[in-house]
Structures are given as structure tokens and as C-alpha cells.
């Protein structure tokens, strides 16, 4: 029995191992690594986990639904960026950001750590990465710094981001009381919030930047981590990340004004050396429109009127021959007319097109040129996402992911809390979503906590913290970050650089979880 579980665990690891080996060691392109991993997942599901062609087809169709959901965000945000770039608005945006906060390290922290967290609070679904990474490029950071800093820098805000979708999902699947779960989740995210600031500084300029920025990072981090702890605990989890990102932005500007970080000259990107031709309000217009539209669609009346305008396929219940059952899904990964980010981003792009065209900032043919560049950039990304997401869904629906998690739990025993956040990371890595990770493993983590006699609240919070931090290395997010800064085809470099930061921060969460569960708060339910 034990050896059969071990064989199943080893087989379940195979697709993930092939994906990581291909991307990080063999330097395959993301589409090739994804295709190999997907093929291996289907073979393992068929030969070892008792799947059949019908359930495999359904899992792949689910994967395609999820791919469509993610790819629409990527295509629309890359198109918006290319349109803004073609109009010359990037120079004005860069000029504004550099005038608000002059020190490059603080600019990096402001954009990758605070603003990305604020946007995650409103939109999520990869939008912060898609918007902030290219903005950082505009301001003058290198593509790799822009992509990795944004990926690592926004990961603290995901559990309470997207109007706390991941948090609410966790409370639904675990049936834990909302206020207590919110308190512990805020507590478990406090250290990662601070640490992700230090990670962003390290990504920007190594240990020197960490030392130089330490006082500022502590102040900003305490403001953000404290807000994200306090606000949800007081009963408003849906605005936890928004207010935390806002608090961080305000403190960063204050820190800059007070001169807490010594100013230093930096070689600016070509675009930023020239005088901006366009006014800043016009330049920022698409982003103002995007934020306004995002807030507008959160109004309950608008939600109720447009809520039914969505497309999503429904899937029947399925089971493997080994008895692993997957529930039926209604309107899986549904794309809402106003609840999905892509229509809002495209409306913002349309507003930008009109404004830039009327004011003569966008030359004739600028729109077509932006569309052509977008197509060229996004095709490889879409092929990669499709194969990786289909692999993840095949693994989830055949019981491979569950087998992986159970293997970790049974192998670790009392040390489980140390590894528990890595299970959250695994869920996010597979699906590109903190919410989906919580759906996959939330109940499992709570059940394991009950078996071990430790706090279910703490372990549920640790699951979500892991799922949140796993966003930094989830292939779907890495592909978004890489594509939007022009590093399509070099996703392996981005992922390779992001992994150590993610692992280090998650390991700290694991240590805090173990201490909390066994030493500090053993009596918490």
C-alpha cells in the first residue's frame, strides 16, 4: 500500500519535474516545456491514475476555458500598452512617476510593491503584473527587473486582492468563521508583506539596495502589512489589499519627500531622457479610465444588472477508475461582460485611442501597428499557457495534485506546518490562481490540522498565504510578466530569478506557521 502510494506520488511529480527541468535546466522555450509536461500529465493520468479519454477531454476543455480567461487579459493589456507606447504617452508617464518619487529604489518599491498591490486589490487576475511591469520599463528599469520585481512585489496582496475573492473562497471551502479567518490570514501575511519589500529592493540593486532602503522598507511594510491585517480583521476584507496598497503608496511618497533614502542618479531609459510632449493627464487617461471602470463595475446595482451577461461552459461530474470524483461545474471560468478585466481594458484602450487620435498624438496606422505587435508578442504566450493550464487541470481532475499534497502531509508529520504553505504554492503554481489553490487545498489543510491537533484557523491562513506568494512563480503569471516587458521566450530567466525569493519568503511563512501552531498559539482552534 505504502509502495503504491509512493509510486503514485512519484508519477504525479513527473509532469511538474519535466516542466521545471525543461524551463530551468534544459532551457527549452515555454511552449515546448509546457507541451512536454502536458503530454506527460495525460499519459500518467491514463496509465497510473485511472483516467479515461472522456474525463481527459473534459479536463482539457476546462483547461482551455481557463486559458481563454487568462489569455484575454494578456492580449488586451499588451494591446493597451502597445497603444500607449505608440502614442508617446510613455514619456509623460515616466516623467510624472520620476517627479513624484525621484529615487530609483523608491520608484521600484512604489511601482512593484505598493501600486501593484493596490491594483491587485481592485482587479487581480494578473492585471497588476500586466500593467505595472511595462510601466516600470517605461520609467527606466530593465525588463528583467521590471518583470521579476512586479511578480515578487505584488504577491503579498493576492489573498485580500480582487475584492478578497481568495479569502471568501477559503472561508467557503473550510467553513471557518470569517472574522477569525481574516485575523489569522492578515497575521500570516504580515511578514511576507515586509519581506517582499526587501526582495524587491534586492532584485533592484542587491544587498546594497536592501541596506540603503531598509528604514523605508520597514516603514512602508509596516503600513501595508498592518493595514492588511487590521482592515480585514475589522470586518472589511474586500478592501484589505486596496487600502494596504494605498497606505504603502502614501508612505512611499512621504518617505521620498522626507529624504529618508539618499537620492542617486540612474541611467534613464531612452524614452525618459527626452522631454515629454504629452500632458500627464492625457498620458494617464487609459489608466484613469481603467480604474474608474473597475470601481464602477463593483457597484452592487451594476453588478446585479450585468451579472448574468457571461459566458462559461458547464461540466458534468466525472470520476476516475480509482474512485477520485470531481464535482460538476456550472459556468466554469465564466467570462463576464463587465466582471472580466479584458472588456474594461479594451474600453480603456478605445478611450485612449480616441483621445490620442483627436489630439494628434497617435499617427494614422498607430492602432493597426499596436495590434500587429500585440499579435506577435502574444502567440507564443498563449500556446504556453494553454499547454500548462491543460496540464494542471488534467493533474487536478485525475487526482494527481491531491496525491502530491497527501504525500507531502504524510511524509512530514509534526513538521507539516513548515511545508503547509508550499502546498498553497503548489496549488497556485498549477492553476495560476490563489483562489483555485484555496479551492484545491483549503479543506485538505484544515483536515490535516484536525488530524495533527493544531489550529485550523492558522493552517487555513497559511494555505492562502502560500497560494498568494506562489503567484510570483506561477507559469501563467510569469508568462504575463515576461510578455508585457518584451521577454517573450525568456520566461525561464524570469522564473529562475523569481523562484529563490518566493521559496525564501514561503519558508519563513512555514517557520512562523510551525511556531504559531505548536509554540505560540497551540490553543487556538
Amino acid at each position: 500500500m505504502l509502495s503504491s502510494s509512493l509510486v503514485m506520488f512519484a508519477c504525479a511529480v513527473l509532469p511538474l519535474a519535466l516542466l521545471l527541468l525543461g524551463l530551468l535546466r534544459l532551457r527549452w522555450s515555454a511552449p515546448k516545456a509546457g507541451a512536454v509536461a502536458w503530454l506527460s500529465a495525460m499519459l500518467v493520468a491514463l496509465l497510473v491514475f485511472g483516467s479515461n479519454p472522456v474525463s481527459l477531454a473534459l479536463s482539457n476543455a476546462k483547461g482551455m476555458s481557463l486559458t481563454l480567461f487568462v489569455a484575454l487579459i494578456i492580449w488586451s493589456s499588451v494591446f493597451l500598452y502597445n497603444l500607449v507606447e505608440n502614442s508617446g504617452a510613455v514619456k509623460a508617464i515616466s516623467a510624472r512617476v520620476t517627479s513624484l518619487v525621484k529615487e530609483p529604489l523608491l520608484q521600484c518599491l512604489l511601482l512593484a510593491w505598493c501600486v501593484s498591490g493596490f491594483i491587485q486589490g481592485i482587479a487581480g487576475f494578473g492585471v497588476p503584473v500586466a500593467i505595472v511591469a511595462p510601466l516600470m520599463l517605461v520609467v527606466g528599469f530593465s525588463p528583467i527587473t521590471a518583470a521579476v520585481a512586479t511578480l515578487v512585489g505584488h504577491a503579498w496582496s493576492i489573498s485580500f486582492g480582487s475584492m478578497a475573492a481568495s479569502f471568501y473562497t477559503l472561508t467557503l471551502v473550510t467553513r471557518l468563521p470569517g472574522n477569525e479567518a481574516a485575523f489569522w490570514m492578515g497575521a500570516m501575511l504580515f511578514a511576507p508583506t515586509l519581506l517582499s519589500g526587501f526582495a524587491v529592493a534586492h532584485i533592484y540593486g542587491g544587498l546594497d539596495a536592501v541596506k540603503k532602503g531598509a528604514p523605508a522598507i520597514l516603514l512602508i511594510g509596516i503600513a501595508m502589512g498592518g493595514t492588511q491585517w487590521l482592515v480585514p480583521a475589522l470586518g472589511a476584507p474586500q478592501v484589505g489589499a486596496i487600502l494596504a496598497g494605498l497606505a504603502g503608496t502614501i508612505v512611499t511618497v512621504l518617505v521620498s519627500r522626507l529624504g529618508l533614502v539618499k537620492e542617486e542618479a540612474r541611467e534613464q531609459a531612452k524614452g525618459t531622457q527626452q522631454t515629454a510632449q504629452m500632458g500627464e493627464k492625457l498620458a494617464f487617461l487609459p489608466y484613469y479610465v481603467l480604474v474608474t471602470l473597475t470601481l464602477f463595475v463593483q457597484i452592487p446595482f451594476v453588478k446585479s444588472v450585468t451579472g448574468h451577461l457571461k459566458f462559461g461552459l458547464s461540466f458534468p461530474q466525472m470520476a476516475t477508475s480509482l474512485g477520485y470524483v470531481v464535482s460538476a461545474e456550472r459556468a466554469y471560468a465564466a467570462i463576464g461582460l463587465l466582471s472580466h478585466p479584458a472588456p474594461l481594458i479594451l474600453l480603456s484602450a478605445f478611450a485612449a485611442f480616441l483621445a490620442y487620435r483627436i489630439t494628434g498624438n497617435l499617427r494614422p496606422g498607430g492602432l493597426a501597428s499596436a495590434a500587429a505587435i500585440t499579435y506577435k508578442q502574444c502567440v507564443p504566450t498563449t500556446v504556453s499557457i494553454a499547454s500548462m493550464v491543460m496540464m494542471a487541470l488534467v493533474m487536478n481532475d485525475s487526482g494527481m495534485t491531491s496525491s502530491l499534497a497527501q504525500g507531502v502531509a504524510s511524509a512530514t508529520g509534526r513538521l507539516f506546518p513548515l511545508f503547509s504553505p508550499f502546498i498553497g504554492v503548489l496549488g497556485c503554481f498549477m492553476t495560476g490562481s490563489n483562489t483555485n489553490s484555496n479551492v484545491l487545498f483549503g479543506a485538505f489543510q484544515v483536515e490535516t490540522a484536525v488530524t495533527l491537533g493544531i489550529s485550523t484557523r492558522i493552517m487555513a491562513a497559511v494555505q492562502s498565504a502560500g497560494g498568494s506568494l506562489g503567484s510570483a512563480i506561477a507559469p501563467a503569471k510569469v508568462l504575463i510578466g515576461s510578455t508585457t516587458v518584451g521577454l517573450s521566450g525568456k520566461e525561464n530567466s524570469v522564473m529562475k530569478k523569481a523562484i529563490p525569493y518566493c521559496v525564501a519568503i514561503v519558508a519563513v511563512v512555514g517557520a512562523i506557521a510551525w511556531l504559531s501552531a505548536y509554540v505560540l498559539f497551540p490553543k487556538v482552534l
Partner: protein
Amino acid sequence: MAKRTKSFCLNMSLALILLAYPLFYVGGISPDSRLHLLAFAPALLACAITIRFC
């Protein structure tokens, strides 16, 4: 490999994957076992093209 060949193959893979989406769904919910297998044809072809040429 020529950049144009790689680009063509990526476009071909994307087209096949887009074709595979409805086929997977219809194949999955259909009682006809021939459709189950047909659903995999374009996706496996896309997979082969991607592994060999991309």
C-alpha cells in the same frame, strides 16, 4: 531554425489549440466514443508541432 518557420509553427499550434477547444468539450460530453478520440487529434498535433519546432 529559421525565425519564420518557428513563427509559422507557433501560429499553427495556436490555430490547432483553438480548434481543439470545442472538440474537447463536445467529445467530453458526447456519448459517441469516436468523438472522444477525435477530440484529441488537433491538440496532439499542436503538441507534436510545438515540441518539434518551437
